[in-house]
């Protein structure tokens, strides 16, 4: 059994400093119309191949950050650059083109329940198609074949023609990942992809995200609540607290004090693995 217990992480936990910057967040702030300051002057760069995990308590702005990275929320100030191109200013067709390079996996997968699994995966190709073809679901045979292969790879081949609404939570999430991957993105955003999944399913999903991202050299940014999971996969951890980044570094640097600062709670009061409780 010992051979199954391998850390999924590549040996070098820091990214080659030479890799190019894929995503650049520059002084981003977001104040919602009700006055909530969800992000306060957040800046960081992400390079190709990094696997970044964002942690932080509820309401610290993790989701808001994610959603500003593909402009599902418009930031109040600052700029987001994807592959050097500004997302903040793009509009219409250019916005669509940038968005297609940033894929997103949501907490509840957000599939269209009445469509088949295959159709849901193929939605990932819409950004690459002409409007008319996309409207009527006239996907190319090549795209369809890719989708079928991808579904087989994630072991959902036999559920291809099921309605998405009929799947279990973990299966839905796998479809969500396939939809993101078929988009052929540079950046993969995942917002709490394993919240409320059971431990065996969580493992499958995290492994899948990790494996898909590394094998395709996609940069991943993942929001998580589980610190131990974060430590197991991340090449870099960003800790948020009240809309600000209070930690940004390799997992090895995440001390108990830092965790306390992020969660504003003594470590003893957190439901985390024993190994994090003392000094590391």
């Amino acid at each position: 059994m010992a051979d199954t217990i391998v850390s999924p992480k590549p040996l070098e936990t820091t990214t080659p400093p030479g890799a190019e910057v894929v995503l650049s967040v520059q002084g981003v702030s977001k104040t919602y119309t009700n006055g909530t300051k969800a992000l306060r002057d957040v800046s960081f760069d992400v390079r190709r191949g990094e696997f970044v995990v964002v942690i932080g308590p509820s309401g610290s702005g993790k989701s808001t950050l994610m959603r500003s990275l593909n402009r599902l929320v418009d930031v109040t100030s600052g700029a987001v650059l994807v592959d050097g191109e500004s997302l903040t200013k793009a509009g219409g067709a250019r916005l669509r083109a940038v968005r297609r390079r940033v894929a997103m996996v949501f907490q509840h997968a957000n599939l269209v329940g009445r469509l088949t699994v295959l159709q849901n995966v193929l939605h990932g190709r819409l950004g690459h198609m002409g409007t008319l073809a996309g409207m009527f679901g006239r996907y190319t045979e090549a795209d369809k074949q890719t989708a079928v292969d991808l579904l087989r790879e994630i072991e959902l081949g036999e559920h291809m023609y099921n309605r998405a609404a009929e799947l279990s939570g973990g299966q839905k999430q796998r479809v969500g990942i396939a939809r993101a991957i078929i988009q052929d993105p540079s950046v993969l955003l995942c917002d709490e992809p394993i919240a409320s999944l059971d431990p065996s399913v969580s493992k499958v999903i995290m492994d899948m995200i990790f494996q898909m991202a590394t094998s395709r050299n996609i940069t991943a940014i993942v929001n998580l609540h589980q610190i131990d999971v974060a430590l197991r996969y991340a090449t870099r951890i960003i800790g948020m607290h009240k809309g600000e980044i209070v930690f940004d570094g390799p997992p090895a640097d995440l001390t108990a004090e830092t965790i306390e600062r992020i969660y504003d709670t003594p470590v003893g009061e957190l439901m985390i693995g024993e190994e994090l409780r003392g000094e590391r």
Partner: protein
Amino acid sequence: MSADTLARPQAPAARIPLVSGQERRFFTAALAVIVGATALTTWITGFNPLAALAGMPSALGFVAADYLPPTVNNGGLLARALVETVALALTSTLVASALAFLAALIGCRAVSPLPWAAPIVRGFATLVRNIPDLVWAVILFTAMGFGFHVGFAALTLGTFGFLTRAFIESMDEVSADTTETLAAVGASFPQRVMQSIVPSFTKDFIAWFLYCIEVSIRGATIVGMLGGGGVGMLLNGELGLARWRPRAMGTILILAVLVIAVDLLTSYLRTKLLNPSAARSAADRSESALVVRRGRIAVTQRGRDREVNLFLLCALALSLAAFWPIRDASWGRLLTDFPHLSRTLFELASLDFSAWDRTWTSFLDTMGIAVLSTVYSAILALLIAPFATRNLVRNPVGPALITSVATLIRTIPNPVLVMMAIAPFGLGVTPGIIGLTLSSTAFFVRVFVQGYEDVPDETIEALQATGAGRVQVFLSAMLPASRSHMVAWIGMRFEMNFMGSAILGMVGAGGVGGVINEAVRGRQFGVAGVAILLVFVFAFALELTMAKVKRTYIR
């Protein structure tokens, strides 16, 4: 939390309140408004609920003596009239729902490609919706002549206003998440519509479509009474002479059978189509090999949505076929006579305040009818509905019985109910109040039962798990949990009753509708314009108030 609400429990002698001061004040205020409005309108109309209750047995006696035994005079004629009325309902619902879908796409802020146009679409829908269908019918009949084409236009307009709002609300709910997801993928607006909104929305679309068919059959009957033809026109003739009443009853009963059949069919379709059985989907799972048809990979399984698609296809085919019985209508004139409408609207807009006094007193009567019938029917339904709720009553016979009586009452056109009430209760507002109370009680029973049955099982279970009994579970969980649903329906029905009472005047029960009818017949459009404006302003203010109350207090 303000300091005063926290301080109270600490005072030793004081009783601990269960709700906050703010909430208590809101409920006190709401109760005061309702009691105040009831008292005021009781005073204005002189309606005596006890006398009404006491008069009920003799009312039934009169109805029995005049209307029974039901007879059918001319079966072929009746059959043709029924077909025409149903055809009118089907075609107008089809056209209205297609138009409303397009309007809702623009009007729904979450998905609109033209956010700036959203308020305009909503505004137009509001304008259309807040003028009763029958007023539209009268305006259109006056401007564009008579016949099915005008009845069709009036019904379509009314349904359009209603459906646009309903669709916008559904779209806000069902597709926000997935539409956003497709936006994140880089999909364009038409792609989002076809790939996310349409599939997510099918369910609600079918539900609303079926609901509107039912409502439109009633609407088509009443529009028919005014000049639209069909069974309403026939009924109008049969009500004309006292000795023809049994014929009218025969027609009503056959209409009731038809409506109940449509009702059963639609609720069967609703459950069948909208909640496909678990057994079926489990069976589907086995047939899962990749399907390649003519060298192309299939993205759906053939027959996957067979039932829903079949239904949509049948509905479309039937609605299109429904143009056949009314094919002789002068459809072309809807376009050629359209300019006449602008003249009539212009004449209406040349407001004439010379009959203001009478308009105002009639308006107060209308208000009285609306307020009192809503209050009394809500009270009656609160008492009746628990006995028709399947997760409360063990024996299913009671609920079934209550539901079918309610459906029968809802079938009888309001004007006929009012006519039946004139004999025992005399003229004026009393028969109007009684007629509307009856029909809205039937309505409330149905929606309250739906609300109770929709309370999540988990909530009910949590209470059962504490050892609470059925009555306790009902009062502590189901009633509060469906409160906002009930308040929303009561508000909506008040709007409907307000417009309904405005309409009743047009067929014989006084109120502001009488002024409109009389003025239009006397070709005094300016006077009618004032009355319509009054109705619109009030209905619109009511809608805004209800929306605000819902937003602020009834989350």
